[in-house]
């Protein structure tokens, strides 16, 4: 992905969906137009009738009034459908694009709290919808109301036109902008309070048991209470502001009408307006201003929508931990892995220092070392989740930095120490590693990974829904699931991070035996501090404080 793709997610989506946006706008314009025309023509009809002409001369006008009434209602329906259609289309794009920009950041470059990331995507994208639905209305309504002011000025009573125009500019443009500016801070405060509440509830949902069992649940109640109080303060500020602006709105509309009626009288006295048309400016102004005023309220939503967009855009502006090369090189058939003088930093911390090692095809590499010594970073390096800043790592003789991450991972299978269980069936959870795998292959790999007993107790076998964060799978079972995935994927190089954690010794031995048997022709790298995981190793590496040294078997 290039810098071009890092443009605003929203603007890009809007451009791509410009057709549906145009349709929505057109519908909105039609509705505004018929609304204003309806009240204008109704006023004209009444006043004309009061002059008591022949009934026949008014039938056309009566027909127009009826037609406008029908058109207005139908148009409103069309407007709402097309606006939502456009909004949802854009949202689908915004969602997918946001997620696709998160993808390069995982796992090393994603910020803290993935729940926040999720909530940001969902919540902010919803606000984007409000932004869209709220935007087409005001824009077209203002446009039409403005046109009416001009039309009235031109054809009916030039003296009222200026007042009308001023009213429209105030209600439709000045006030919403002012309100939007005044609304930035209270809206931010409200959003922050919401975030605090959400964090507290999120902690409760994820680790409430720990809070309870450690007697610390009071802390959660305090946080919810504090969040609620902050929310109240912010909400009070927001409603006060809303009240102020709607009051101002009402005042401006009221005074505009008063002045238009006053001006109309002047025009009548000077005979610059025909008697049958004299009520049209006031009534049209009333309905146009109402229209503009009603839709300008949604301009307030635009403010929070824009804040959401800013957040979405900063979310994807984080630096990538790995950069794919502009020109990719083809993989060589070999899978030998060599590290030459490699040093890796995480953020600004040196994690692996000047490592030299070669993992031949078919090797069984045992990596041991104390906790926190950099074993996992070594695995991330080989799976191309992170890049070395110094030295060179090669796969089949090709430098990793000349290969894409997916090229590397088509050779190197990596099982992390906490595989995610997706909220779907057991089969789908394994099949994601190898989409064309048959049910037999899946069952086979599950059994090899030691999940046979689990499979036999699941009510719907492979088709049992598992997943969610509380999966009903134990930590050991999750690791076995990770291994089953790796077995189904059949990569020439398999890197396992603590595969037997949470298993007892005999289970662990059996699992490692199965893995070694199936990975016979390929390379197997096992990161573990359990001695029994390292049986049959052809090479032993010890990682300590970022340094890696080979241990000769005694």
């Amino acid at each position, binding site marked *: 992905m290039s810098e071009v793709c890092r443009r605003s997610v929203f603007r890009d989506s809007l451009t791509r969906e410009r057709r549906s946006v145009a349709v929505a706008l057109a519908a909105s314009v039609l509705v505004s137009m018929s609304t204003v025309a309806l009240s204008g023509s*109704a006023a004209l009809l*009444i006043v004309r*009738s009061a002059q008591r002409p022949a009934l026949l001369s008014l039938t056309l006008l009566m027909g127009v009034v*009826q037609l406008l009434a029908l058109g207005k*209602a139908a148009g*409103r*329906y069309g407007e*709402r*459908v097309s606006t939502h*259609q456009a909004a949802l289309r854009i949202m689908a794009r915004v969602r997918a694009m946001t997620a696709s920009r*998160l*993808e390069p950041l995982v796992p090393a470059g994603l910020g*803290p*709290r993935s*729940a926040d990331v999720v*909530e940001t995507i*969902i919540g902010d994208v919803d606000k984007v919808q409000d932004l869209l639905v709220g935007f087409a209305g005001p824009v077209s309504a203002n446009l039409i109301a403005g046109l009416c002011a001009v039309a009235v000025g031109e054809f009916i009573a030039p003296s009222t036109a200026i007042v009308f125009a001023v009213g429209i500019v105030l209600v439709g443009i000045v006030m919403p902008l002012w309100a939007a500016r005044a609304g930035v801070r209270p809206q931010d405060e409200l959003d922050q309070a*919401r975030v605090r*509440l*959400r964090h507290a*509830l999120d902690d*409760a*949902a*994820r680790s409430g048991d720990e809070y*309870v*069992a*450690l*007697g610390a649940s009071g*802390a*959660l*109640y*305090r946080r919810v*209470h504090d969040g609620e109080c902050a929310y109240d303060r912010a909400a*009070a500020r927001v*409603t006060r502001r809303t*009240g102020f602006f*709607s009051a101002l*709105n*009402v*005042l401006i509309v*009221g*005074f505009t009408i008063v002045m238009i*009626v*006053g001006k109309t009288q002047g025009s*009548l006295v000077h005979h610059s307006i025909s008697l049958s048309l004299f009520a049209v400016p006031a*009534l049209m102004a009333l309905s146009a201003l109402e229209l503009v005023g009603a839709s300008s309220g949604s301009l307030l939503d635009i403010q929070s929508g824009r804040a959401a967009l800013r957040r979405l855009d900063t979310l994807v502006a984080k630096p990538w931990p790995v950069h794919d090369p502009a020109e990719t090189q083809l993989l060589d058939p070999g899978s030998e892995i060599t590290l030459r003088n490699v040093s890796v930093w995480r953020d600004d911390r040196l994690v692996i220092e000047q490592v030299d090692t070669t993992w031949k095809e078919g090797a069984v590499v045992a990596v041991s070392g104390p*906790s926190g010594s950099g074993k996992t970073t070594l695995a991330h390096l080989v799976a191309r989740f992170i890049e070395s800043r110094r030295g060179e790592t090669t796969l089949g003789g090709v430098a990793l930095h000349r290969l894409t991450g997916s090229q590397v*991972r088509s050779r190197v299978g990596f099982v992390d120490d906490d*595989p*995610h269980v997706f*909220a779907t069936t057991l089969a789908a959870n394994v099949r*994601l590693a190898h989409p064309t795998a048959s049910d037999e292959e899946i069952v086979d790999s599950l059994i090899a990974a030691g999940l046979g007993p689990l499979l036999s*107790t699941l009510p719907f076998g492979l088709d049992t829904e598992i997943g969610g964060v509380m999966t*009903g799978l134990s*930590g*050991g*079972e999750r690791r076995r699931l990770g291994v089953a*995935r790796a077995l189904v994927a059949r990569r020439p190089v398999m890197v396992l991070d603590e595969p037997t954690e*949470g298993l007892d010794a005999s289970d662990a031995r059996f699992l490692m035996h199965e893995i070694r048997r199936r990975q016979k022709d390929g390379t197997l790298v096992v990161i573990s*501090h359990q001695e029994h995981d390292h049986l049959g190793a052809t090479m032993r590496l010890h990682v300590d404080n970022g340094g890696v040294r080979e241990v000769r078997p005694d």
Partner: protein
Amino acid sequence: MAIAVVFGMVNVLLTIAQAVVLARALGSLFADSSMSIGRDLVILATLAVARGLVALVSEPITSRFARPVRHILRVRTLDAMLRRGNHSPPDAFVQLGTRGVDAIETYLAAYLPALVLSVGAPMALLAWMMFTDPWSALIVASTFALLPIFMVLMGLEAKERMDHSWAKQQVLANYFGDIVRGMATLKAHNRSVTATESLGDVGNELRLSTMKTLRIAFLSGFSLELLSSLATALVAVVLGVRLIDGDVHLTTALAVLLITPEVYVPLRRASARFHASTDAVGAAGAILDLLESAPELNGCESAPTVPPRLDLHDVRVGVEGRDHHTLLALSAVIEPGTVVGLEGPSGVGKSTLLRVLAGLEDLTQGEVLVNGTGFANIEPTSWHATCAWLPQDPILPGATVRDVLNMGEEYEDKRLRDALDELDLDVSLDLILGEGAEGLSGGQRRRLAVARTLLRPATVLLLDEPTAHLDELNAAKVMRAIRRRGATTIVATHRQLDVDVSIMMSAPERFNV
């Protein structure tokens, strides 16, 4: 809520007054363009000021009344979440506690007053119209005869939304969460791009189903809009004909014309908030379910303050999502202050037994006695203060290492430092952690969790794999620190650890060593 209705009704009266005065001014001008209408214009301006005042104060005042309800609901939701335990996808819970509760607040603060007004305001307006011009009132009233159709449409919409919308939103929330949380796993298998693309498909699917709902939902809006604009047109035409005949005065006609669309405004407003109401009903249902599903806790005996003796009598625990034959039956006596190892193959129920003893789950069968007192009779809060539980996959909430260790308490830094040093964990108290403490390695994370557990003044320690991810040296340090507490301790483990007694748990056999 009553205040909101009062404000609404005042607004209706002011609207009528405004229409009447405006019509009178225009009527006067029609009769004689040189007539002085200054008085009417002043009244109009005054009415505008009055409406402005109502707008200024009504929302800040009315929004205040739903707040206590929101507070209570939020706390009750949290309460139920904590009592029920971490069983369900957390995103759904968080949605419920945030948007769900907000939806109910909106329902109370906005929808209910609008609903009352949607009946009261049209009645008031119609009453005025009946008094001023019965013919037009009749026309408007007759359009209300079409209202049942509108209501049927609303009902259809409600059903559609109840069936799909709320559930859909939750499914979607979990789907996004799932993909984003599992992104690393997906990426390891070169599936992250495909999964990300599937988000686009899910979005489209959501759009299609939402549009299906909305097309029906908007029908009710359409029918209201149609009623209102057709009534305006009809009233205008009939007034026109009657004006030609001289049956009605222009002033009256203009006033009626101005008021006619206003009759439908409150109804439209209520129906616009109807979405909020169905969301709220959905959310309220879900919250009620949550409150009901949360077990009521009882028991009033206080927990012991010195390390107690634990008796397990033929205890069976259910392992979630498994058949019954994986249940276990276990009897054991755990003497005060001893360290007991709980061993057995994966999935046999070791973790579940610890959860039961931590008071997080119910026993399927059997009895646990604490110093001879039945477990069920002990007051839960005091038990939770007595025991400290280390889960198998601890989550370490908190921004820094200090926050994680404190977990709501405020220990002195020295104590925290000592707790870390005891486990040879060399990290700064100010180290900033991400979710799941991802700045730390697996072994550091585990030791941090152990340190947090051991900091609590507990006389019963329930530790699920405290030495996972640790090498022999660190594992030994952890075990020494545990022993130093002198608490009645149960350690679930797969390793050979330095324990006083080992209890073997195995599925088919029933007994212990």
